[in-house]
C-alpha cells in the first residue's frame, strides 16, 4: 500500500522537494530548508482543503440532500484557519526570508578575505576579470566600455596591470568566499549557478555584487537565466572551476600576465 503510494508519487513527480538540485555552497542548506518549510505549509493547506473538498462533494453532491441549507456552514473555523495561514507566513517572513536575504545582500565579504571577480555577460558567453596576484582591480568606468575594452578598464591604473581576463572559464579556491560583480555588455542576462544557489541578473550599466562560499571542488555549470536573444538556450559555455588551494595557486601563477595584460585590456 505504502509502496504503491510512493510509486504513484514518483510516477507523477509529486515529490517536488526530492527534485532539489545538488547543493554545494554555504547558503544552500538554509535555502533548501526554507523551501521545504514553505512547501510543508502548502502541503498542509492542500491536503486539508482537498480532504474537506472531497467530503463536501460526496456529502452534498453525490448523495444530494433534499434541500440546500440557506445558512450553510455556521462555524468560525475558517477565520482561525486564515489567521493561522497569516501567522505562518509572518513567521516565514520575519524569521527566515528577511534575515536570510539581508545576510545574502547586505554583508558582502570585504576584498581582504574573499576572492573578487568581475563578470561581464555578453551575447552569448561570460567574460571574467580576476584581480591577479595583487588582489586589486584596476579602475573601471562604464563610459569606457566598448567591444574591445569590455570591462571599461582605465588603462592608466597601475593596479590593473596584472589583472587576468578569461572567457567562460574561471578558477576559484574552495572554502573561500567569492564575490562576483555582475554586469553585462549588451542585453540583460542572469548569472545563475544552481548548485551554489546563486542568481543575479546581469544588467548593462550596473555592477551588482553577489557572493557565496563554495564548499565542494568541481566544475560548476553557469546558467543564463534571462532571455537574452536567440542564443539564450545555447549560452551554456560558462563554468566555475572550484579548485583546491594548490590547484588554484598554480592556475593563478600560470595565467598572470608577464608584462601586464594585452595592450587594450580584456581579450579579443
Amino acid at each position, binding site marked *: 500500500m505504502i509502496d504503491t503510494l510512493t510509486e504513484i508519487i514518483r510516477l507523477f513527480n509529486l515529490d*517536488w522537494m526530492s527534485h532539489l538540485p545538488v547543493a554545494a555552497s554555504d547558503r544552500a542548506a538554509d535555502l533548501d530548508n526554507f523551501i521545504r518549510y514553505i512547501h510543508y505549509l*502548502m502541503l498542509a493547506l492542500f491536503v486539508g482543503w482537498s480532504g474537506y473538498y472531497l467530503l463536501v462533494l460526496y456529502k*452534498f453532491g453525490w448523495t444530494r440532500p433534499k434541500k440546500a441549507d440557506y445558512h450553510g456552514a455556521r462555524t468560525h473555523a475558517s477565520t482561525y484557519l486564515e489567521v493561522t495561514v497569516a501567522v505562518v507566513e509572518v513567521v516565514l517572513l520575519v524569521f527566515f526570508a528577511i534575515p536570510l536575504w539581508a545576510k545574502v*545582500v547586505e554583508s558582502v565579504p570585504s576584498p581582504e578575505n574573499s576572492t573578487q571577480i568581475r563578470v561581464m555577460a555578453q551575447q552569448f558567453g561570460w567574460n571574467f576579470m580576476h584581480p591577479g596576484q595583487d588582489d586589486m582591480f584596476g579602475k573601471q568606468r562604464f563610459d569606457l566600455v566598448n*567591444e574591445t575594452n569590455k570591462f571599461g578598464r582605465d588603462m592608466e591604473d597601475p593596479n590593473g596591470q596584472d589583472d587576468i581576463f578569461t572567457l567562460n572559464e574561471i578558477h576559484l579556491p574552495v572554502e573561500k568566499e567569492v564575490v562576483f560583480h555582475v554586469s553585462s555588455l549588451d542585453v540583460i542576462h542572469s548569472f545563475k549557478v544552481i548548485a551554489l544557489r546563486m542568481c543575479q*541578473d546581469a544588467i548593462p550599466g550596473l555592477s551588482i555584487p553577489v557572493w557565496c562560499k563554495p564548499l*565542494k571542488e568541481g566544475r560548476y555549470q553557469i546558467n543564463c537565466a534571462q532571455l537574452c536573444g536567440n542564443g539564450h538556450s545555447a549560452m551554456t559555455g560558462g563554468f566555475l572551476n572550484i579548485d583546491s588551494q594548490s590547484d588554484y595557486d598554480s592556475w593563478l601563477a600560470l595565467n598572470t600576465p608577464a608584462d601586464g595584460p594585452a595592450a587594450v585590456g580584456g581579450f579579443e
Partner: protein
Amino acid sequence: MESTDSHVHHEDGHGHHDPGFWRKYVFSTDHKMIGIQYGLTSLLFMLLGFFLIALMRWSIAYPGQPVPVVGYLLHAIMGDMASPVLDPQTRELIGYAISNDLYNSFGAMHGTIMVFLAVVPLAFAAFGNYVVPLQIGAPDMAFPRLNMASYHLFLLGGLIMFASFFIPGGPAQAGWTSYSPLATSIPTDGQFYWLVAMVVIITSSLLGAVNFIATIIQLRAPGMTWMRMPFFCWAQFVTAFLLLLAFPPLEVGALLQLMDNVAGTSFYLPTGLAISTLSDVSGGGSPLLYQHLFWFLGHPEVYVLILPAMGVVSEIIANNTRKPLWGYKSLVYSVLVLGFLSFIVWAHHMYLTGMGTKISTFFQTTTMIISIPSVIILTCLFISLWGGRIRFNTPMLFALAFLPMFGIGGLTGLPLGFNYSDILLHDTYYVIGHFHYVVAPGTIFALIAGIYFWYPKMTGRYMSEFWGRVHFWCSFVFMNLTFQPMFAQGMAGMLRRMADGGVGYSIANNPDAIGGLADRYLQLNVNITLAAYALGISQIPFIINLFYSIKNGKKVESDNPWESTTLDWQTPTPPPHGNFVGPIKVVNGPYEYSVPGAKADYIPQNQKA
C-alpha cells in the same frame, strides 16, 4: 451602409426596425453583440495561442527535429525562420525545424496573445459586456458608441499583432515582457508592431474600463444597491479599475521603448552598452525603468486575469449549490483589498535585479499580505459548498475544478513570493507551472464554465451535456499532466524560455560539470508535450459543441433555465435591444436560494419573497 443589406433580414423584423447586417453584427452598439464579438475574437486568438505553444512544445521535446506536417507550412509563412533540416547521411532536406529566433517569436506571441488578446478580452470584455448590464438591470452600457469603438480598437490591435507574423523577420522576440535593451537590439520590425499593437490594445482597454465603471456606478436599476450586486459585477468593477490605473504606465513603457526603437532615444539604454545593432546611442538610460513600468502593470494584470474568473465561478457555484454564497461581504471586501494591494507588489518579479533588503522586504511583505485576501476568497468559495444541494452540470464541473487548480497555482506563488526561495526558482519552470495553474486550469476553466453557463441565455439552447462532460474530464486530466511535472522540472533548476528544452544544460551535454540537468527532466519534456497535444485535441468536442448547438442544441424550457436569482436571467431569451421588457425594481439580495419557507428554491432579485 444601412440600406444595402437590410432587405436580406427583413422578414423576421416583425414591426421592429431591422438594423441590417452591418449595424447588427459589425457596427453594433448593443452590449450583447459587442460581448459576443469580443468572445469569438478572443477564442480565435486563444486557439492561435495554443497552436504557437504546440509548435514550441515540439521544439522543447524534440529540439532541432523537423516539425511533422506543419513544418513546410511554417516555412512557407515564416521563411528562413523555420530552419531546414537535412538528413545526416543523404544531405537531403527532410523538413523544417523551429529555429531559436522562431521559438523566441512564438514565445513572445504566445504570452502576449494569451494574456492581452485571449484571456483579458474574453474574461473582462466579453463576459463583462454581455453579463454586467444584464445583472445590474441596465438597458445597455453607459456609452454604447464608445463600447463599439473599444471593440474596433481591440480588433485593430489584434490584427496588427497578427500581421507581424507575416513581415520579414517575424514577430517580436523578446518575450511577452519585452525587456529592454533586448527588445531594442533585435534588428527586425517585429518589436515595432508589438509596441504599436500594444498601444492600440491599451487604448481600447482604457475606453472599456471607463465604460464599465461608469455603467456600474450610474446604471444600476432602482433598488440594486452596492451590497445587492452579484459578486461577478464586483469582480468586474475592481478589474476595470485595475485596467484603468495600471495600463497607462505600461503605455508609457511601450511609448518610451517605441521612442528608443524609432527616434533613437536612450530611455532604457545605459551608458557602456556595446551592441553592434545599437552602435550609436547616447546612453544614460536605465533598463530597470522599463521593468518597473512593465511590472507595475504586469502584476495588476494577473489579477485582471483571475478576478473575472473568480466572479464567474461564484455565480455558478451559488446557482448550482442552490444556496447563497458563504461570506458575500468578505468576498466583496477581499476583492477590493486585492485590487488595491495589487498595485504595490510589482517588484516581486524583480527580486534578482539586485534589490537591497529594504525594498525587497517591502515587496515581499506586500506579496504575503496580498495572498491573504486570495486565501479568504478561496475559503469562502470552498465553504459555500457546505450545506448545498449540488448539481453536477458541465458549468459546475468546470467551476468546481477551478477551486483546487487555482489553489495549486496560488500556493506555488508563495515560494516565489519570498525572495530567498526565489533565488532558486526564479525563471525556472516552477514559475511557468505556477502561473499556468492559475491561468489555464484556473482562469480558462472558469471562462469555459461561463460559456456553458450563459450559452442558453445567448442562444436559447443548451450545449450538449454529454460532450461537455467529455470535454471536462479530458481537459482536467491533460491540464494536470501538462503542468504538474513542471514543478519538478523547475525545482531541479530547469530554466524557462529554452528553445532546446534545456538540453544545453543537461548532464549529457556536459558530463564533467556539476549542476547539469538529469535525463529524466528531458524525458518529462516529451511527456508534457504529448499531454499538451492531448489537451488541445480535448478542445475539439467543445468547439464543435459550441457551434453545433446554436441551431441544434436542446431548447431551453424557460427564460431562466438554471432557475437563477440574478437579473441576467429575468429577461427574454435572447434578450432584445434594451434588455428588459418592463421597468426593473430590485428588492432582494443576489443569492436568495433555498430561503426557508419560500415556495420555490430561488427568489429572483426583482421578485417579492
